[in-house]
């Protein structure tokens, strides 16, 4: 996939770095143009206009589209009890970054997985995964109840009765995702 960028140098560098992770090339004459707010919009092309602060949302948008057909989007390989297992994202309750690395939790087990939380956040956004704090990514399909708590925080009660905290910083994201 190729995109053209029309943005400030600072945003350009950040986007270039992020897009390269997903093999998205930057080309001057691409049909898809990412335009930072305030820059002239070229005609006759497919345009995505974004605010500089939301550049990661653009990456997520592109990545979820690019990866839709890719195998990795629908499965992941986890390591548990000296065995590798193929897991489907829909079976994952949440992904956690801890001292043991990145772990994916299912109802019955926990698996050590590769990549980063940021990666899964981008790739699985369309599958209902959302970041709820600095170290956890949750699958909203497995949330049983949203418990409001003080200081703009939430607690998510999962299908397996695990309780995960949505930090103040990420509660806004949860509200906008669910349109609460």
């Amino acid at each position, binding site marked *: 996939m190729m995109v053209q960028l029309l943005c400030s140098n600072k945003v350009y560098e950040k986007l270039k770095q992020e897009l390269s992770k997903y093999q998205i090339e930057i080309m001057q004459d691409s049909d898809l143009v990412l335009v930072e707010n305030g820059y002239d919009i070229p005609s006759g092309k497919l345009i995505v206009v974004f605010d500089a602060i939301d550049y990661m949302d653009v990456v997520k948008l592109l990545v979820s589209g690019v990866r839709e057909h890719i195998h990795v989007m629908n499965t992941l390989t986890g390591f548990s009890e000296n065995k590798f297992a193929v897991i489907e994202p829909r079976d994952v309750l949440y992904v956690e970054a801890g001292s043991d690395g990145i772990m994916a939790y299912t109802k019955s087990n926990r698996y050590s997985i590769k990549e980063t939380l940021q990666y899964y956040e981008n790739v699985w956004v369309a599958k*209902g995964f959302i970041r709820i704090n600095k170290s956890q990514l949750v699958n909203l*399909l497995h949330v049983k109840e949203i*418990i*409001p*708590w003080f200081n703009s*925080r939430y607690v998510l009660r999962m299908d397996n009765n695990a*309780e995960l905290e949505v930090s103040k910083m990420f509660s806004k994201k949860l509200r906008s995702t669910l349109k609460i």
Partner: protein
Amino acid sequence: MESIIKSFFIGLFIGILLQFYDDADVLFSYKVLTVLASGSVGFIIGLITEWLTSILPIRMANSRTYFFIHNFIALIVTTFILISSMMFTSSEMEGQVEFTPILLIALGIICIANLFDYMMYRRAQHKLKSFKALIKDK
């Protein structure tokens, strides 16, 4: 901060409502001051509530506890502040008798505000269900 602002506006609303309840013939500026004072009391209640609830550990979080604590703290703090202000402003029995409906109105509005909070909680569960259905359809 959000809940402190909310408390401030609930305070203003109570102040405005009390102007209708108390039909005394006083200057408009005095009425405005009363409404602002009511808003300030709301702000203080919000501040105290926020401070008290920030101490609570999140591990005790569940919906029943949240609504109970929220309502309980708001009612206790409001009652305490209103009774304190009544004691400072008037010590006569007649004043206290007049003060009871004011206290009841204030507490009633707080209960309604908490009921609204509960409705928002129900709405959040419903939105979650809709979101799950949408993702499953995809």
